[in-house]
């Protein structure tokens, strides 16, 4: 079924906008904003605010309506469905099914110095009340920290015979994260070791579909908990080991 934005009543199509046009404010500035939104296909445009915030710029807040809708059923995507287990269940599952510790190596790669996200997933203290991977008796987790070059990450993963590699990418300006993430995939493929690892990426602008597109096995976005990651890793590594 097609849905439209709901402002005050079903299907009224109301959307709120704000934007800045590089024009000097004048009596007609409001109409420039209005007609601009009309050109974009909206109607019933109400310019709530139109102020010159500088001799060169005019700022707008507006509401307008659209007749466009979208059918949510037609939106298809690769949504990660992890069966989240609890801390003890994850450990028992690894012990029982894998029969050894699961080895994980993680890092914020290349120029990215943001470690809070990967720390939240890997470090003892964890995130939002959930322990990090280091705390799991059945997981052997190494967090390599920030600005780790891909080559160094791979070297360590091979040395430790890791089951999984976790990378974090937070800075996304000019799509720098795409560049870094692709670099890692290419390196793994060049070395012929792509298939040896469950490859996971996370960050505030990451989602599973995007991660899959880039060639990763899974992607985790904002508010991920270590438990989700641990559950996924346990199940995926066991599955690959053919022991599930």
């Amino acid at each position: 079924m097609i849905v439209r934005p709901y402002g005050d009543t079903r299907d009224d199509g109301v959307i709120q906008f704000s934007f800045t046009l590089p024009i000097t404010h004048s009596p007609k500035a409001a109409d420039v904003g209005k007609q601009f939104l009309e050109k974009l296909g909206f109607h019933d445009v109400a310019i709530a605010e139109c102020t010159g915030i500088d001799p060169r710029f005019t700022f707008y807040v507006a509401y307008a309506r659209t007749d466009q809708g979208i059918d949510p059923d037609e939106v298809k995507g690769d949504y990660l469905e992890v069966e989240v287990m609890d801390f003890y269940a994850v450990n028992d599952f690894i012990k029982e099914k894998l029969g050894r510790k699961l080895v994980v190596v993680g890092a914020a790669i290349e120029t990215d110095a943001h470690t809070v996200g990967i720390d939240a997933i890997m470090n003892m203290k964890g995130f939002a009340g959930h322990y990090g991977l280091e705390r799991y008796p059945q997981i052997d987790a190494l967090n390599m920290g920030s600005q780790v070059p891909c080559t160094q990450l791979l070297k360590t993963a091979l040395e430790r015979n890791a089951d999984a590699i976790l990378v974090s990418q937070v800075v996304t300006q000019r799509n720098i994260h795409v560049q870094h993430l692709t670099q890692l995939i290419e390196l793994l493929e060049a070395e012929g070791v792509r298939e040896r690892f469950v490859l996971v990426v996370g960050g505030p602008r990451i989602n599973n579909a995007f991660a899959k597109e880039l060639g990763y096995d899974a992607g985790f976005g904002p508010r991920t908990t270590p438990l989700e990651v641990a559950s996924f890793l346990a199940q995926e590594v066991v599955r690959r080991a053919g022991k599930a």
Partner: protein
Amino acid sequence: MTDAITIDQSLVDRARTAAADIADDIQRHIDAHTTDSTERATLRLLGVTGVNEIDVPLVNVVVEHARALLPGGVIRPFVDLMMQKGKSAQEAAEAIARGELALAEVPAERRAAAEARATELAREGVARIDGVRERRNALVAEIGEPLRPYVYVIVATGNIHEDAVQAQAAARAGADVIAVIRTTAQSLLDYVPYGETTEGFGGTYATQENFRLMRAALDEVGTELGRYIRLCNYASGLCMPEIAYMGSVERLDMMLNDSMYGIIFRNINMRRTFVDQYLARLLNARAGIIINTGEDNYLTTADAFEKGYTVIASDFINEAFAERAGLEKWQMGLGHAFEINPATPDQVVYQVADAQLVRQLFPEASPKYMPPTKYMPGDIFQGHIIDAMFNFTGIFTGQDIMLLGMLTEALHTPLLQDRYLSIKNAKYVFESCRHLRDEVRFKSGGIIEKRAGDLLSRAVDQLEHVREVGLFAALEKGEFADVERDPEGGRGAEGVFKRAADYFNPVFAALRDGRMSGPPVGPAPGTRTAAGEGRPS
């Protein structure tokens, strides 16, 4: 606040004395008059409901029909007719509407019987109200009571079913009170529309059926949330007591109900309004409903900085009227507002002074603090910030009921998402600043204490002046809200009658006798939602 601002108690006493005298003076007028709506409300209490074939409520038809009898009160002839014809109140009214029966003076020999029966019926009507109040008490005890301040938001789609959807969404976002805004100018209708409605205009018709539908929606969501969700509407305008009655049986929990709002803002005749508000308040008092007074409105027409004292004066007057109708302190949602121009240096400091003064003058009342409206900008981001400072002022001065401001106040009645954002704003500010007021004391002789002292002494001056000239004359001179009203003018004047010597209406006494007391009590949402949740461990 343990250490509040120092207030001159002798001024407070003078204010209360003057307000009492003002109200007593008006009470003499009230006790000497009845109105169309008073009589219609009386019939409703007996059980008369419904409309005729052209959608005129039966109570209007009957009262219209009985116009000549009104000075004596409609209930005696009406009950007499019921008795004579062996009909229920509803059957009698329907028959009158069809022109099959007619009301007439009750012959002396049947008076005593009719009056006795009327008294019985009035008591039965009041017992129904009591039943509803008991039900509220039971539900609150069972479902749970929100923390103060109550988060109060409006819905105003015009369609009661959409309103219900939005009200439930608001409750889930954290609202404790839902007010259904009325369609524009319903105040001026001299009848209450009937049945479920879906076509309001900037609001939804206040009808008994709409009350019922919304009540059910809120009970449902309140049970889901473990927090009794209160429902509010408007016992205001030309049908004040009738709507108060409907609220009392449909379990509304709050009612906008001001002794002077209709006069000032709707140009309703003042002789009419004062009489109407009295019965409305008796009903609200009985039903355990919290009234909200409308002083905030003054500051939309008068300047909040200069005329802040009129709010204080009016709060004392509304308190005095409320006491005369038997409302308990906790039922007095005295109005005040955050309306000083945000461009004023130290605006928040002044607002804290004003709000703190109200809090201290009416410590046991449930002040209702109204958000910025007049100076809300088209820049919704900035509006959201002004609302945050309102929320801050509210929690910092310990207000009980916070009507939340909307970032789109200058634009449209709230969208679903506006309400969500506004509740999130308030919840954050309340929880993050909850105990700040316990942490500080106000410096004596500072801006705050001076401003508060100034407001109070001006309010006393005004009250004493109003006592001298009389409230009618004061309203005539525009002493509240800068709006002038003619005591003989305005709408609904034709519906006021001097009571005859034998005016009879047992409803007033029935409403006073054996009234329950105290607010409903229930478990706080407590540890589960308020404390600990976000604290890093």
